[in-house]
C-alpha cells in the first residue's frame, strides 16, 4: 500500500478560494482563472501515490507549485480541497494536536535555505524535534548524536550554524530531519543552494542513506538532472498541475506531451542512462564445448564472436571466429583459445563512462553483475540509438534483427 496518497489535492491562493474549485473542474487554466477571479492556483488537483521506501521527486520550474505541493502534505500550507492520506489516514481531518503528533513522529523536513536556528548549537538544532516531543535530555542527546554521525559531522556538535559551510549546514538540516526517525522525509529543494560539486556529494550521500534506512523521501527540485539521478518516481509539474508521473526512463523516453519533451530535450542522456538500459542479450557458449561447436554456432547465427561462460553464466572470456579456426588447426581447447581481456562493466555504469571502454576494444562491453554473471552486452549501435532519443527497446530490437 502507498504510504502517502494525494487525491485531487488543490490549493488556491486568494480571498474566497473555494470559488475556483468548480472552475478547475471545468478545466479552466491557471491564467484564465487568475484573469477572471484574481485567484491564484497553487496546486491543481494533484493525484499521486508514493510507495514506502521510494524517492519520489516532484520537479518543475519556479512557480510551478512544487514547493506548495510539498507543504500541503504536512499542512504547513492548508489545502483548499482534496485529500492527503498517510497510511490511509486523512491528514486534512487531523485535529491540531493530531497534526502536531504527525509532524513530530511521522514526517521530517529539510529546507532549501537550511532554516537552522541561529541561536542553537548544531546538536541543539538536531534535537529540536525531539525536544518539542518532550523526550528527556539524555535520551534525545543520544538520538541526536546518532543522527549527527549519520551525516558525518561528529565533532561539530557544539558549533553554531554560522560557523559551518553551506554543505555542512545542510547536513545538519538533514540530521535534524532524520533525528526523530520519521517514516517520510520531505526535502524542499534541499540541495539547490549548494554549489555543484557539494551538491553531487550530497546526492550520493542521500542515496547511500536511503539504501541504509529505507526512508520514503519526497524530494523537490527544479533540476532535471538531479531528479533523474535520485528519483525512483518523478512527478513533473507545470502551472500547479502534475503533467506526468513516471520513472526517470519513462519521463525521458516517453514524454507525455510537448512540455515534457521540451523539458527533457537538453538532458545529457549519457549521464542518465546506464549499461542496463542499453544492453542486449549476449550470445554465449559454455566452456566445456569445443571450438568446432563454437564455430558452427557463429556460422548459424551470422556473428563473429561468442561469450564463453560457465554453467552459472559467469563470464570467462570471448572467442572470435578467427580464434576458433586457429584452435581447430592446432587442436586447442576453447579455454586455451579464448581471449580473457574483454572489457566489462556493472549494470549501473553510466553510458558516458562506457564510451572510453568501448573505444579501446574491438569487442562489445560485457555487463556483469556483482556475482560475476553475464547479464548482457553493450554494442555501439544500441548506445547511439538510445542517445539519439530512440527508446531502448527499439535500439535492442534493431540489433537483433541486424
Amino acid at each position, binding site marked *: 500500500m502507498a504510504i502517502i496518497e494525494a487525491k485531487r489535492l488543490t490549493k488556491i491562493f486568494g480571498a474566497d478560494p473555494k470559488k475556483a474549485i468548480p472552475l478547475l473542474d471545468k478545466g479552466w487554466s491557471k491564467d484564465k482563472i487568475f484573469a477572471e477571479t484574481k485567484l491564484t492556483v497553487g496546486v491543481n488537483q494533484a493525484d499521486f501515490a508514493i510507495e514506502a521506501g521510494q524517492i519520489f521527486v516532484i520537479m518543475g520550474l519556479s512557480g510551478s507549485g512544487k514547493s506548495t505541493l510539498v507543504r500541503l502534505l*504536512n499542512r*504547513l500550507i492548508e489545502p483548499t480541497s482534496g485529500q492527503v492520506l498517510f497510511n490511509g489516514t486523512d491528514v486534512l481531518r487531523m485535529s491540531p494536536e493530531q*497534526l*502536531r*503528533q*504527525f*509532524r*513530530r*513522529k511521522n*514526517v*521530517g*523536513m529539510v*529546507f532549501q*535555505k537550511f*532554516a*537552522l*536556528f*541561529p*541561536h542553537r548549537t548544531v546538536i541543539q538544532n538536531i534535537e*529540536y*524535534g525531539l*525536544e*518539542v*516531543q518532550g523526550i528527556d535530555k539524555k535520551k534525545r542527546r543520544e538520538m541526536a548524536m546518532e543522527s549527527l554521525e549519520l551525516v558525518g559531522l561528529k565533532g561539530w556538535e557544539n558549533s553554531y550554524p554560522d560557523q559551518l559551510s553551506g554543505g555542512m549546514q545542510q547536513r545538519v538540516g538533514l540530521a*535534524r530531519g532524520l533525528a*526523530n526517525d520519521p517514516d517520510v522525509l*520531505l526535502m524542499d529543494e534541499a540541495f539547490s543552494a549548494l554549489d555543484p560539486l557539494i551538491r553531487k556529494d550530497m546526492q550520493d550521500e542521500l542515496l547511500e542513506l536511503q539504501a541504509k534506512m529505507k526512508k520514503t523521501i519526497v524530494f523537490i527540485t527544479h533540476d532535471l538532472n538531479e531528479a533523474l539521478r535520485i528519483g525512483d518516481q518523478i512527478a513533473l509539474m507545470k502551472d500547479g498541475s502534475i503533467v506526468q508521473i513516471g520513472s526517470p526512463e519513462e519521463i525521458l523516453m516517453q514524454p507525455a506531451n510537448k512540455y515534457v519533451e521540451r523539458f527533457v530535450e537538453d538532458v545529457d542522456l549519457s549521464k542518465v542512462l546506464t549499461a542496463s538500459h542499453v544492453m542486449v542479450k549476449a550470445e554465449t557458449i559454455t566452456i566445456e564445448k569445443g571450438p568446432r561447436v563454437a564455430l558452427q554456432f557463429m556460422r548459424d547465427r551470422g556473428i563473429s564472436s561468442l561469450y564463453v561462460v560457465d554453467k552459472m553464466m559467469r563470464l570467462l572470456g570471448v572467442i572470435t571466429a578467427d580464434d576458433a579456426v586457429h584452435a581447430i588447426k592446432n587442436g586447442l581447447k576453447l579455454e586455451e583459445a579464448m581471449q580473457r581481456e574483454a572489457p566489462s562493466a556493472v549494470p549501473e555504469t553510466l553510458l558516458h563512462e562506457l564510451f572510453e571502454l568501448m573505444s579501446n576494444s574491438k569487442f562489445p562491453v560485457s555487463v556483469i553483475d556483482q556475482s560475476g554473471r553475464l547479464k548482457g552486452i553493450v554494442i555501439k549501435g544500441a548506445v547511439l540509438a538510445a542517445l539519439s532519443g530512440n527508446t531502448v527497446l527499439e535500439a535492442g530490437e534493431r540489433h537483433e534483427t541486424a
Partner: protein
Amino acid sequence: MKLPKIPLADWIEWLEGWLETNLEPLFGFIRVVVGETVNGLEAALSWFPAIVLILLFTLLAWFIGKWKMALFTLIGLFVIENLGYWSQTMQTLALVLTAAFISVLIGVPTGILCARYNSIQKIVTPVLDFMQTMPAFVYLLPAVTFFSLGVVPGVISSIIFAIPPTIRLTNLGIRQVPEELVEAADAFGSTPAQKLFKLQLPIAKPTIMAGINQTIMLSLSMVVIASMIGAQGVGAYVYRAVTQGNTGVGFEAGLAIVILAIILDRLTQQVIRKTNTA
C-alpha cells in the same frame, strides 16, 4: 454657518469623574502595589551606605562591561555623592526601575500579542502613537485625580510615556524572525508556546532589549515632570531650581540625572551586545 463647538473637554471631565467613582477599588489596588514597590526598592537602596552601593554598582559595571565603564560608574557615582544628591538619586532610581519593570511586565506580553494577532496590533498601534505624542503633562492631571499626589502618579505617567518602545520592539522583533525558521519550527510539531519560547523570543531578544533600553531612558526623562506632582528625588531639585531661577543647583541636579542615565544606558546596551553575540 458656524457649527457649535464639540464639548470634548466636558466629555473627558465626565469620563474622568465616572472612572474615579467607579474604578476606585482598582486605583486603590494599583496605588498600594506601585507605592509599596517604589518604597521597598527605595528602602533597600538607602539601607546600604553610599560607599557600599557605589562599589557594588562599579563591580556590576565591571562584570557586564569593560573597565572603562566601571571607572565611569565609580567616578560618576562619587560625584553624585559628593554633590549631596545621593539619597535623591536613589529615590529617582527606585522610581525609574519600578516604572521600567512594570513597563516590561506589561509591554513584553502586549508586544507578543501584537505580533501574534494582526487585529490586536491594529488597535494597539494608534493607542501607542497617541500615548507617545500627547504631551506628558496632560497625563499628570488624571493621574493625580486617580492616584492623588506623590510618587505613584509619577510612576504611572512614566509608564504611559515610556512603555511604547517595549511594546513596539517586542512586536517588531518577533515579526522579524525569518519566515523559514517559523516554518521549520512548525514542521517539527511545535506548539505555539514552544515556538514562542524556543524560537521567537530568543531570536527577538536583542530587539526586545533595545526596546527595554529605550523604555528605561524615557522613564528617566520623566522624573522632572513627575516631580511636579510630588514625586521625590533628584527631579524635584531640578524643578525647584527652575521655579527659583537657581542655575547652579539646577545644573548639579541635572548632572546627577545625566550620570544616572549614562550608567543605565551603557549597562543595558552592554547586555544587548552580549545577547547579540551569544
